């Protein structure tokens, strides 16, 4: 979106939004514009700290999936998956066969509900100019209804195999507590077939939206598996040569504590900010998508590479389509295992896991003693990894647009943040948008409020 500058003097404005809406959690943005240049940008996270890594110490290894789920009500499965895989790694156990497939299945359910919430209820209103999906429903009732029903289908996978949508109770170290008989899942299969068709419609619809021209050169980081689109396994790779195992994460990434945020900022050692999430997965794993999802992506104009975060709404839609495909594949081959879990005996040691949460890479590390008590825990959520990249985007996004009417610029900045579906509850939390323009010649101040 080109913006012509008709002023000789770069305009100066102060824009302030007290609470960034349609994100999960509490955050603010502070943006200082000086002579048309972004002088400072801070994504402030006010979400009160909750100290999970501290109180995990002294807890039992079997409690990790239930406790860490409480970090985020939107993506509890991601926390449960990273927790069980890290703990099993520490105990030297590998879960395979149907149980492994069902972990992928329940993750499909979470990606569907979380992505669809974002596509239809948090992100789409920006593209169509509505304050919320409820406002949007007045003019686009059928579209919003379709989104709600797709989300419901994802939630049904989670509640069938997890017990409930938020903080599921059926995931345990070693597998599950109880699994349904094959006969019980027939209605779910029918619903997912409808969902797959509706997801294809979502991709086509998302491709018709209007996107600002904002291609950036990012370092994308995601898991990569030899055969599958990644959920729980694979190596951490990037488009700039990173290729490591999950257990090497700490040697390549550092979390920095900055004053303006209750969330830690993660950086790749020696290179700085990086990008995790649907777009990173898509760019690094296009060849692992199902033929249906690949074709839908091509038809939507994405030939395996997407560098414009505004287009992430299409990428999420493609991942939702792929999730329905994958969930149906798993359910069609489903046989109830003889036992819903494998025994896991604790031992002293450290375990590592990185899995793909809806918003990107989620790293867990636990150190256990011989009785299975947790001595130390480390959790790096996706939004803290994207925080620096979000700030970088705003630095580049704002300068060509400083002449826009204040309200419009404010809204576009919010949209640029929402591109990442930031989950501030995870990264800790409170989005306030505060754009401050200073250093303009006296008399040129344009008071906005």
């Amino acid at each position, binding site marked *: 979106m080109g913006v012509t500058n008709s002023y000789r003097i770069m305009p100066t404005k102060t824009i302030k939004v007290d609470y960034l809406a349609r994100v999960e959690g509490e955050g603010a943005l502070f943006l200082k514009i000086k002579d048309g240049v972004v002088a400072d940008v801070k994504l402030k996270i006010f979400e009160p700290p909750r100290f999970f890594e501290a109180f995990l110490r002294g807890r039992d290894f079997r409690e990790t999936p239930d406790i860490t789920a*409480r970090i985020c009500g939107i993506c509890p499965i991601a926390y449960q998956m990273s927790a069980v895989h890290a703990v099993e790694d520490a105990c030297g156990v590998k879960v395979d066969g149907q149980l492994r497939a069902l972990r992928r299945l329940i993750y499909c359910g979470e990606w569907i509900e979380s992505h669809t919430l974002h596509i239809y209820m948090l992100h789409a209103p920006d593209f169509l100019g509505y304050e919320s999906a*409820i406002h949007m*429903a007045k003019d686009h009732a059928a579209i919003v209804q379709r989104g709600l029903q797709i989300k419901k289908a994802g939630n049904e996978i989670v509640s069938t195999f997890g017990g409930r949508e*938020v903080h599921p109770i059926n995931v345990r170290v070693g597998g599950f507590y109880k699994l349904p008989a094959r006969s019980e899942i027939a209605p779910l299969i029918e619903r997912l077939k409808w969902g797959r068709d509706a997801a294809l419609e979502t991709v086509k619809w998302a491709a018709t939206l209007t996107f600002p021209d904002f291609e950036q050169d990012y370092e994308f980081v995601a898991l990569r598996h030899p055969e599958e689109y990644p959920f729980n396994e694979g190596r951490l790779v990037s488009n700039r040569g990173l290729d490591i195992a999950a257990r090497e994460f700490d040697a390549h990434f550092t979390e920095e*504590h900055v004053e303006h945020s209750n969330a830690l900022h993660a950086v790749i050692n020696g290179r700085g900010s990086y990008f995790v999430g649907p777009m990173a997965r898509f760019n690094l794993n296009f060849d692992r998508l199902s033929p249906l999802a690949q074709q839908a992506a091509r038809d939507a104009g994405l030939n395996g590479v997407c560098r414009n975060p505004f287009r992430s709404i299409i990428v999420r839609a493609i991942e939702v389509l792929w999730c329905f495909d994958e969930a149906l594949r798993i359910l069609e081959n489903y046989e109830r295992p003889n036992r819903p879990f494998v025994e896991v005996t604790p031992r002293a040691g450290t375990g590592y896991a990185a899995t793909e949460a809806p918003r990107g890479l989620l790293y867990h590390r636990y150190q256990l003693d011989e009785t299975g008590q947790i001595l130390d825990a480390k959790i790096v959520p996706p939004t803290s990894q994207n925080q620096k990249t979000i700030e970088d985007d705003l630095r580049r996004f704002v300068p060509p647009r400083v002449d826009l009417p204040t309200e419009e610029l404010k809204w576009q900045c919010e949209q640029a943040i929402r591109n990442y579906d930031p989950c501030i509850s995870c990264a800790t939390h409170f989005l306030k948008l505060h754009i401050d323009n200073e250093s303009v010649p006296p008399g040129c101040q344009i008071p906005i409020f």
Partner: protein
Amino acid sequence: MQTRKPKLAVWKFASCDGCQLSLLDCEDELLAIAGRIDIANFVEASRAVVKGPYDISLVEGSITTPHDAERIHEIRRQSKTLVTIGACATSGGIQALRNFADVKEFISIVYARPDYISTLAKSTPIADHVFVDFELRGCPVNKMQLLEVITAFLAGRKPNTPPHAVCMECKRRGIVCVMVAHGTPCLGPVTHAGCGALCPAFDRGCYGCFGPKETPNTSSLTTWMGHILHMTKPDMLRAFRSYNAGAEAFRKESEQHQEKMDGQEMTKIGERSRA
């Protein structure tokens, strides 16, 4: 006759967002709700914020910062009816585990620069700060109960959310008792109903995410757990010290096990929760 739609606001304090998400998880009912009430302030879902006062405020999360301890009073002033939703808002949530430790040490475990962090020593429920009209329990709340509460307040009647034990729901569903039949420790006898006996239905013991029922006999249950199921004291301590650790009945019971532990076990737990 009242023609104005009642105004609903949703507020967030320290929490995971899961309880307010439950409202968006009402996929079949959401647009009908929006037709009957004015969703005037729900920042997670909408940029549009209609000014107060509000007919009903749903409050998620616990009070953990000095700023939030002030903010809740302003929300109370703007709300005709204030309903707290979920374990964080009704008991302090899992972050109330700090109440049993030294928060300064907690900060130093998680953050490199403790001086950047502003937090209170304790995580407390909303009712410790302002008058609360109704508390809806659960970690997370049951979305059907959430709909019931909203409906009841709009109709001017008391919500129908029974305060009896999970055991009652379990028996009604005809589930075989996991504790009696399988020897699985279960907090069902002392835990507030509302989930529909979810965990026993999945062959696991209840872990108390709805907090204590009214008049819970926790000491009788722990006698059982110790004598019949041979649960250790640290395990019993952890059982009561989780998502509703700050609820009075669970807090008192967990403190019993801390006091009763012998010196060696005390040191072990103490070291680990502080280390």
